[in-house]
């Protein structure tokens, strides 16, 4: 599972500025074919921006200042808008956080799925619709013929999510970026979608970058996990390693916040004191310094690099050796 295959996606040093504030700061990770990389972290830490930056879809206020995004051996960061357009949907696709907002409310879902196919393959309308129908069957939507003519508002949230997935997958992309694809869905539908992704990975060797805040989902599907905090990667590790031996205070505290069977009902859950600094408040040192129980002066002034912790496991903390103090403090 940890064999060093040549990565399909190699993001390095990705940096995004908004109004002079560094909201994504030197993010690097690689994803091998058929692998799922989970990106987790507190709300607002820059996960979505990282995803947008990979496809060249940053909002107009944001600017990518640095970074390489190698897809195979081509660098998406150097692409013109025209080249990007050709790559989007075909080489690299994205599923957005909010499925109903990401579908044109006034176009039938069939046409939206088929459009993506026609653009990249030049297929005829009839062919594209046939392909779209096939995709609906693949994502497990019953009665696809009727659904193709329906509008997004006529579908439930889970169905919209699956439509988005169908659009993202119709051209057989090599990389799929999924930004919180299951938030706001109930668990039964969530399970269906996760199963679909697993099938994709298994059948087509697609690489997936999965953004989520649900540790259960991570546990279910991810191969590797990158934990982000305030624009930087705090820790990156194979999934089992991360759950077993978190090597960053933030990761440890995050995992501890999940309600578990062994925590008595209505007992206090572990939390992280304080709140995420805004990009304007970022100091020169470790961004987690303001909330870290292990903080020392060094943390405040000097940014920790990603230290290797084991095979494929790296963590950006000056005090990895003292992590046990945290795990010990936890209930």
């Amino acid at each position: 599972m940890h064999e060093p295959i040549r990565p399909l996606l190699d993001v390095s040093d990705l940096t995004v500025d908004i109004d002079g504030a560094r909201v994504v700061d030197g993010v690097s990770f690689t994803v091998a074919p058929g692998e799922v990389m989970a990106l987790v972290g507190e709300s607002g830490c820059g996960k979505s921006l990282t995803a947008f930056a990979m496809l060249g879809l940053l909002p107009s206020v944001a600017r990518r200042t640095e970074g390489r995004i190698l897809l195979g051996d081509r660098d998406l960061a150097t692409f013109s808008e025209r080249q990007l357009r050709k790559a989007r949907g075909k080489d690299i696709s994205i599923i957005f956080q909010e499925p109903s907002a990401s579908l044109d409310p006034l176009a039938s879902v069939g046409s939206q799925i088929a459009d993506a196919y026609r653009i990249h393959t030049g297929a005829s309308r009839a062919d594209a619709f046939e392909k779209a129908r096939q995709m609906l069957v693949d994502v497990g939507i019953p009665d696809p013929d009727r659904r193709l003519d329906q509008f997004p508002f006529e579908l439930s949230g889970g169905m919209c999510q699956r439509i988005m997935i169908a659009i993202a997958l119709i051209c057989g992309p090599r990389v799929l970026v999924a930004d919180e694809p299951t938030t706001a869905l109930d668990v039964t539908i969530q399970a269906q979608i996760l199963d679909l992704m697993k099938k994709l990975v298994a059948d087509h060797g697609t690489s997936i970058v999965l953004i989520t805040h649900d540790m259960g989902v991570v546990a279910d599907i991810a191969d590797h996990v990158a934990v982000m905090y305030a624009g930087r990667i705090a820790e990156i590790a194979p999934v089992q390693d991360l759950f077993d031996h978190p090597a960053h205070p933030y990761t440890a505290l995050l995992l501890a916040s999940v309600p578990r069977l062994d925590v008595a009902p209505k007992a206090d859950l572990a939390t992280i004191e304080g709140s995420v600094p805004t990009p304007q408040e970022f100091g020169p040192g470790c961004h987690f310094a303001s909330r870290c129980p292990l903080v020392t002066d060094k943390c405040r002034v000097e940014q920790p690099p990603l230290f290797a912790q084991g095979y494929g496991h790296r963590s950006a903390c000056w005090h990895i050796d003292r992590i046990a103090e945290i795990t010990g403090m936890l209930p």
Partner: protein
Amino acid sequence: MLRYVGERLLQAMIAIFGVLTIVFIVMHLSGDPTLLLVPQGASAEMIADLRRELGFDRPLWVQYVGYLNDLIHLDFGESVVQRVPAIDIVASRLPYTIQLAAGALTVAIGVGIPAGILMATRRGGWLDRVLTAVVVTGQSVPTFLSAILLIFVFAVTLGWLPASGIGGLSNLVMPSIALGALSMSTFARMTRISVADELSKDYVRAARARGLPMPKIIVRHVLRNASIPVISIAALEIGNLLAGAVIIETVFAWPGIGQLAIQSIQARDFLIVQVIVLLISFVYVITAVLADFIYAIVDPRIRLAR
């Protein structure tokens, strides 16, 4: 939906009735046409006689009941000035009004909407600035002035277009531009705002993520979504174009309803005014209901929202 239409039409009837009543009362409060009809120097008795013969001496409510009674029998009455059925007079003007309104709408929509789209997509760029200046010009030159300037330039100086009156398409050009300019600005602004709004929405980004080129996104997705406020404006503007063309029609000697309206108001030719008001509110109501239907066609959600 049928019930909705029924209800809507019933309300519309009541509204039209309200319009007629208000106009009736205010018109009559503002005086009757007798003094305008008699030659200078007519004596008081003569004026009183004529007033009595025309029926303007009766109490207001009697006149009103009489008017409603005629209306129920689809008798719209006769112009006191022209002594011809009011409905015939208005009907004779209708084709010209429709021509002019169509011309002006063509200018307003044909120029305004593309300009709005360009402004929205090039927001902040030089094209946006240039078009903004054009739009503002449309909004800041009084029509009576722009009309006469057009005449001086294109009719008197260049001799390209006829200065006044009806006739071929060439007669329609200048009035349409002069009348459409203001609406054009409104359409351009409204289109700019709503297209810009749509462009910032997630589905546009999603469409880009699918690999769709921008022009295609605009044509396929953005325009349809941005069209609702523009349709509302169009519905308002159509009513406006019918009656709002007073000055344009006067300057270009265009025999439309607007000119007839102001002349009849000034002449206190009540029954013509009433027919015009009836017509305008009718058009207004129809366009409003029609707009609702277009909403429902453009946006399938609206069907259920009722």
